[in-house]
């Protein structure tokens, strides 16, 4: 057994034994009683929460204000109730008389902020938005990130590929980094977790945070700006998604909850095909002609086409040349997803636990794609002594996906294969995919010289994923005095991932077959401590200071071995290689040490001043620059607390806030020195090559400065609430690979350069138009707009290219982040398109064709509750921006899509493009050259004609549910039963042709927004969710 495994097992054993210990041992403590009264009225208060600090041991007062709790002398109790200022009380005798002061405000939401500190929302000096776990378990997405779509202002979610198990990209408040991924840090119970996107050979194996099980999530807090993230360090520069897992609650005995969802994904083919012409070029078809539908009209004439009884097809089978309009749709199938969760939770005054098991079983739209995922999560806490509490949370995730589909533009992808199959192709004839007599070696398809049979691809060429992952942490809390406490914690995210890529003998691009095994390991350990001192000086002044440190160690490895040809067809083992195996290995280590401090001063629980500071030491930067310090400050005030508003005042609550923060950032490991790269060996000769980028041994940390102003106002007794935020972020010293002239021998040079300035607005609006006893109606609107400008790049550089597909995404000085450049039509001085030989000419200079970021985004949610029947819907609206659907361009060049009929409709014999041409004398005269449709559409497309306004509106979610009233359940063992019908992605309104703009292209492991590249069909999903507790 490997040492790391041994340590892990020890930790787990310890964790589990610590977790269960409380239920085996007997409580040693005495009962403490007490009574809580209102300081003003001197009357008893009912429902006051009494909690032993740092535990989940809590009770509430009865109608007479009395309570009984298991506790010992010296313990600190947290006493809190709606409308009162919370109080800390030390247990001294056996009976406690507690007096609470009324607060001049309504109940406040508590939100989880940086370092897991729970704060009343009023005390937070920056924008933070929370999503409850149940919002994600009802209308379930198999990728956690997608569940956030439309729910948080300023958070933009883009699907990578629509493929089963595929990745999603989340960008908070726009992009500020040129070379970085602009992805936020995901933190589970205080410990950062991995959110790497895993791709290999154009298969999207998903983003790691997508695997976290929503059933185990209590809340997700989105900390949007660097202010919120200043304490999480450099990796949090793009925001933090803070996940708090569910814990067992004390004093409620053992409860069991079951949550099941079954959903059906119905394939929704967006493409509109032409059905008038079959495969071929120049109006003719010949056996073996590939792909394009510029062949003869589908008029029922006799035609010889390949058939699977003759190899190689030379004579073929004579068929009637007719269209099969649904041939693409027939290939895809409906997807099924079944999710079951069972959780057992309980606790007493000494401890608590929650054990949860979830099973996900999913099949995709592409035949034979599927995945199973099991999540087992254990949360446990135990109060070892009066002062020492232990908490642990461990989640084990096992994913097994025997096959995922290849995405993008390449002949292993089913979408690609279909765009190059003619309209006369019979899908049913391809199901039996071997040539007779060549079973196992030669697959039959119509377009056999270019592509594979899509069924053969789906059933023979598998892309498997197996992944085991542990995410867990153990923490100790020690309360020295009521004021002083220490937390020690260590957490780990460890995974082993295996990709099996199989290519059958006879695959077009792998005639001799191929097998590749890729193994990825990932381990990140974070150990931290936090010492906190909190003191109420008097009834007006409170302060709290914390100091902490964190040690992060990351260890990644990838090992890939490929058998480039197979000896025995169908046997996928590295031993079966017909040629020498090709291996590659990349290991990397990365470490960050940090120290940080945090302080808050509160005045009358209404004005709050927060200060944070952090210093990071990163292993990836040169020794001279590897230490970087960054501070933050925020100030907020609930001004309505001082206004003594009359009770009929329309304004019921008002708060203003301002904050400023700085975050530093390092670079990837091993970026400082040049090393040689390995090339493919030639026989026994190994070879290396000099990389094209010149490394820089003197890199500095990147710096991000941000300030944020906001206000939160509520009116009409909180029936209307509005939260408004403005933020402004400037990032400097970005670490980029600066392009240099290739004649220097190199293509780029690593430098610190660039300045991106980003600002934006966020508005959250809550309205409760109807609030009666039997009917509730709530409206929530999230609206956000962001603009990020490129202020400077490096000296002498005005353009920096970002990962892109068909259009070039470029950062240009003065331009915006996300600007897309492409070719346009050449135009005469009056703006007419210039034609040459009947085909529009392209201007080779790349021009700005728009920006992939929407002008604004909005999520609009309405929810209704009528006597326990709930209904809600969520609209997700992206307004503006530009989008380039490659399917539209390529599908029409191929003559497959409906637009390509122009010029070959009945009575048409070509197209005379509208514009001008140069005559012999060099003058522009109207174009009068008629060309056939194939030539015209072949030359028509460029960046300009392929780019569309990116506005879309999607009916993201519709829910209808009913919870059986508790009184009806009294005779049954159930506590709660609720059922819910859920629809996701039910409707789309957009002018973007032929595709669903929800899906984007991918470039390597990067999702490229603003462009589609042979995305899989989108789907509507219909689900049934059943939830009961007993």
């Amino acid at each position, binding site marked *: 057994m490997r040492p790391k495994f041994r340590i892990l097992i020890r930790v787990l054993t310890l964790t589990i034994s610590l977790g269960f210990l409380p239920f085996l041992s007997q409580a040693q403590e005495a009962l403490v009683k007490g009574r809580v009264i209102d300081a003003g009225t001197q009357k008893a208060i009912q429902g006051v929460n009494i909690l032993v600090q740092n535990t989940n041991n809590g009770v509430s007062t009865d109608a007479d204000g009395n309570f009984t709790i298991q506790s010992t002398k010296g313990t600190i109790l947290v006493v809190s109730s709606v409308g009162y200022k919370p109080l800390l009380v030390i247990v001294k005798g056996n009976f406690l008389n507690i007096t609470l002061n009324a607060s001049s405000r309504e109940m406040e939401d508590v939100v989880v902020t940086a370092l897991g500190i729970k704060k009343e929302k009023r005390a937070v000096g920056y924008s933070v938005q929370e999503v409850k776990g149940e919002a994600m378990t009802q209308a379930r997405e198999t990728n956690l990130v997608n569940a956030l779509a439309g729910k948080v202002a300023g958070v933009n979610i883009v699907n990578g590929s629509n493929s089963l198990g595929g990745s999603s990209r989340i960008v908070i408040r726009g992009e500020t980094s040129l070379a970085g991924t602009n992805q936020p840090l995901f933190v589970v119970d205080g410990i950062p977790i991995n959110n790497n996107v895993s791709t290999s050979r154009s298969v999207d194996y998903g983003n790691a945070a997508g695997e976290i099980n929503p059933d185990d999530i209590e809340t997700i807090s989105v900390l949007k700006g660097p202010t919120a993230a200043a304490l999480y360090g450099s990796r949090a520069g793009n925001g933090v998604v803070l996940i708090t897992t569910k814990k067992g609650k004390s004093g409620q005995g053992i409860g069991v909850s079951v949550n099941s969802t079954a959903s059906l994904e119905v394939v929704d083919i967006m493409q509109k095909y032409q059905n008038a012409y079959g495969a*071929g*070029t*120049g109006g*003719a078809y010949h056996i*073996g*002609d590939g792909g394009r539908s510029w062949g003869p009209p589908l008029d029922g004439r006799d035609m010889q086409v390949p058939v699977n009884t003759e190899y190689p097809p030379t004579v073929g089978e004579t068929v009637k040349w007719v269209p099969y309009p649904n041939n693409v749709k027939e290939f895809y199938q409906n997807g099924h997803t079944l999710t079951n969760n069972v959780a057992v939770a309980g606790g007493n005054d000494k401890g608590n636990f929650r054990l949860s098991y979830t099973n996900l079983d999913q099949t995709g739209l592409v035949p034979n794609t599927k995945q199973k995922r099991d999540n087992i999560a254990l949360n446990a806490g135990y109060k070892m002594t009066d002062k020492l509490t232990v908490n642990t949370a461990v989640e084990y995730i096992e994913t097994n996906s025997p096959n995922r589909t290849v995405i993008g533009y390449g002949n292993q992808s089913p979408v690609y294969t279909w765009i190059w199959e003619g309209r006369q192709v019979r899908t049913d004839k391809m199901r039996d995919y071997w040539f007779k007599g060549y079973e196992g070696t030669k697959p039959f398809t119509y*377009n056999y*010289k*270019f592509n594979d049979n899509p069924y053969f691809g789906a059933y023979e060429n598998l892309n498997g994923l197996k992944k085991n992952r542990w995410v867990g942490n153990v923490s100790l809390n020690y309360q020295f005095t009521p004021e002083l406490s*220490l937390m*020690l914690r260590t957490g780990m995210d460890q995974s082993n991932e295996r990709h099996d890529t199989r290519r059958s003998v006879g695959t*077009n691009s792998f*005639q*001799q077959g191929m097998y590749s095994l890729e193994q990825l390991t990932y381990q990140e350990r974070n150990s931290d401590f936090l010492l906190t001192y909190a003191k109420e000086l008097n009834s007006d002044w409170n302060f709290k200071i914390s100091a902490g*440190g*964190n*040690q992060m160690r990351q260890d990644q490895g990838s090992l890939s071995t490929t058998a*480039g040809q197979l000896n025995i067809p169908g046997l996928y083992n590295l031993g079966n290689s017909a*040629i020498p195996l*090709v291996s590659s290995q*990349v290991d*990397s*280590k990365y*470490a960050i*040490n940090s*120290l940080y401090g945090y302080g808050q001063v509160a005045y009358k629980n209404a004005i709050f001043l927060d200060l944070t500071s952090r210093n990071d*030491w*990163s*292993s990836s930067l040169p*020794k001279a620059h*590897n230490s970087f310090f960054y501070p933050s400050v925020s100030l907020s005030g609930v001004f309505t607390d001082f206004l003594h508003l009359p009770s009929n005042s329309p304004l019921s609550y008002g708060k203003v806030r301002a904050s400023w923060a700085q975050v530093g950032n390092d670079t990837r*490991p*091993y970026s*400082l*020195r*040049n*090393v*040689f790269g390995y*090339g*493919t060996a*030639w*026989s026994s000769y*190994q*070879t*290396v*090559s*000099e990389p*094209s980028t*010149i490394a820089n041994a003197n890199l500095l940390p990147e710096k991000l400065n941000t300030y944020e102003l906001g206000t939160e106002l509520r009116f009409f007794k909180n029936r209307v609430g509005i939260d408004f935020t403005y933020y402004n972020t400037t990032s400097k010293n970005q670490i980029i690979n600066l*392009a240099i*002239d*290739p*004649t*220097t*021998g*190199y293509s780029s040079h690593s430098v610190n350069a660039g300045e991106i300035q980003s600002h934006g607005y966020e508005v959250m609006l809550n309205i409760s138009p109807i609030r009666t006893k039997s009917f509730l109606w709530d409206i929530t609107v999230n609206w956000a707009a962001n603009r990020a400008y490129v202020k400077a790049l490096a000296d002498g550089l005005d353009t920096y290219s970002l990962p892109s597909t068909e259009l070039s995404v470029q950062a240009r000085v003065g331009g915006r982040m996300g600007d897309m450049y492409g070719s346009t039509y050449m135009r005469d001085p009056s703006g007419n398109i210039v034609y*040459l030989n009947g085909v529009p000419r392209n201007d080779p200079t790349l021009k700005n064709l728009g920006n992939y970021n929407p002008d604004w985004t909005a999520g609009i949610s309405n929810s209704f509750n009528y006597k326990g029947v709930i209904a809600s819907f969520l609209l997700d609206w992206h307004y503006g921006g530009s989008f380039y659907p490659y399917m539209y361009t390529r599908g029409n060049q191929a003559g497959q899509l409906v637009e390509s009929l122009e010029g070959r409709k009945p009575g048409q014999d070509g197209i005379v493009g509208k514009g001008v041409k140069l005559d012999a004398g060099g003058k522009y005269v109207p174009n009068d050259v008629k*060309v*056939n449709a194939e*030539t015209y559409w072949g030359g028509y497309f460029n960046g300009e004609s392929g780019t569309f306004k990116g506005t879309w509106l999607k009916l993201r979610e519709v829910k209808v549910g009913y919870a059986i009233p508790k009184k009806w359940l009294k005779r049954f063992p159930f506590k709660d039963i609720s059922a819910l019908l859920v629809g996701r992605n039910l409707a789309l309104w957009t002018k973007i042709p032929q595709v669903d703009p929800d899906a984007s292209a991918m470039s390597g492991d990067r999702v490229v927004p603003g462009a589609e590249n042979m995305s899989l069909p989108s789907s509507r999903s219909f689900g049934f969710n059943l939830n009961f507790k007993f």
Partner: protein
Amino acid sequence: MKKIFFPLIVLITVATTGCDKNFQAINTNPNNPEVVSPNLLMVNIIRGTINDLVNDGFSSGNVLMQYCTQLRDPGIDRYSLGSTSTWDNGYADLRNVQVLYNLADQGKLDNYKAIAKIMRVVLFARMTDCYGDLPYSEALQGKTGADGGSPVYLPKFDSQQDIYAGMIQELKDANGLLGAGKELIQSDILFNGDVMKWKRFANSLRMRLLLRRSNKVNPSAEMTAMLADPATYPLMDAVTDNAALKYDIAPNLYPLSGSRSGDVQYVCLSKAFADTLNVFQDPRLPLFFQPTSASVTAGSPIYAGVLNGQPDASLSGALIPLSSQIGLMFYKDIQVPVPAQGVVMLVSELKFILAESVVKGYITGDAKTYYEAGIKASMDYYKSVSGVNISATPAYLGQPGVAYDASKAMSQIGTQRWIAMFYNDWQAWHEWKRTGLPVLTPSKTNFNGDKIPVRFLYPSDVQVTDRDNYTNAVKAQGPDDINTKLWWMN
């Protein structure tokens, strides 16, 4: 408890901040070397360079020089030559060549140094013959300048005249550096460490360059001196001397093997080449191309080509069965090994260089002998590669059009050189630019005013990354246009 916890905090603080020293170890790349020996660069340099020759030869060189024609997406036949990747690929290959040179120079390893010089010339020559002026003397200094000086980020463009002078000198130096008594050449996939073959190649390449600039610089003295001293200046002669890369098993297959059969079928035999080879009943034709599938089905196989530049309306799949596909020696199916080699320079070319040089009076000798030796060398080469027993029979050599006729010597040499240079990079194109031979009719449908282009456009990126030097080069050389003549052209 306090007694335990406070020291613990101190310990953690020290642990988190104190292990700074480890950081350098943590950030030391465990995967890749910073220092290598020169032989490790050989495979990448030779394979990378020759793969470029083969890929560009198929996609562009063969079509421009009307060996082949495009039945679909006829960009080359229309003479819409976009900005090609030749520039970027060439300088990227040269980056590794420069590293090899520097390592050899530091280690006083003359043989590797000579190979670096030869490969520099192979790469620079094919680029300047395509583009004209380009960065040469100041190129490849992005990391360190010449003699350890500061890097040059904006290299100036040198004139083609200067580049040629430099390259010829480099080949002369390489020949002098190479020696059998010096270090062993390892990982040499081109000549298997044979110093003498490298010498023969260097000198033959020098002959090519001397003749190529002969419209501007008389090569007579230099050629004569070389031929007079074969001990110092050995030349390629035997079939084993050919500078052609024999490919290996996958993943080092002949580059065309990476293409799908559908893509290959749309580049078929051209009518111009078919007519020439059919008239001569050239035994190389069945190696270069296959009989048309229609004729095979009909039972009487023939080799037929399609006229370059069919109009759009005539380009259709219907042409495929009527035109000859590329020979099975070059392509069977995707990922299927074939015997074809990556040709850099063949003995036959040298013989035609000598034949032409005699005809033009640069050297003395018998033009007919050289001419026939060129044809024989070509036949022998294809015999050795394909295993098919072909030869330059007396009947072949004696037939009209082939039989040496001093009054048509240049035209005959041009035609035979064209045949022998099939699928050799853009070499036939360069020779056509220099001599106008063979006489070719421009593609039937083209967007270049019925002129066969003579150069490529500079990559558009250069206008951003090296603007001033680009502007100066255009001023000196003429417009950045596909019809602007190169310096060595007449």
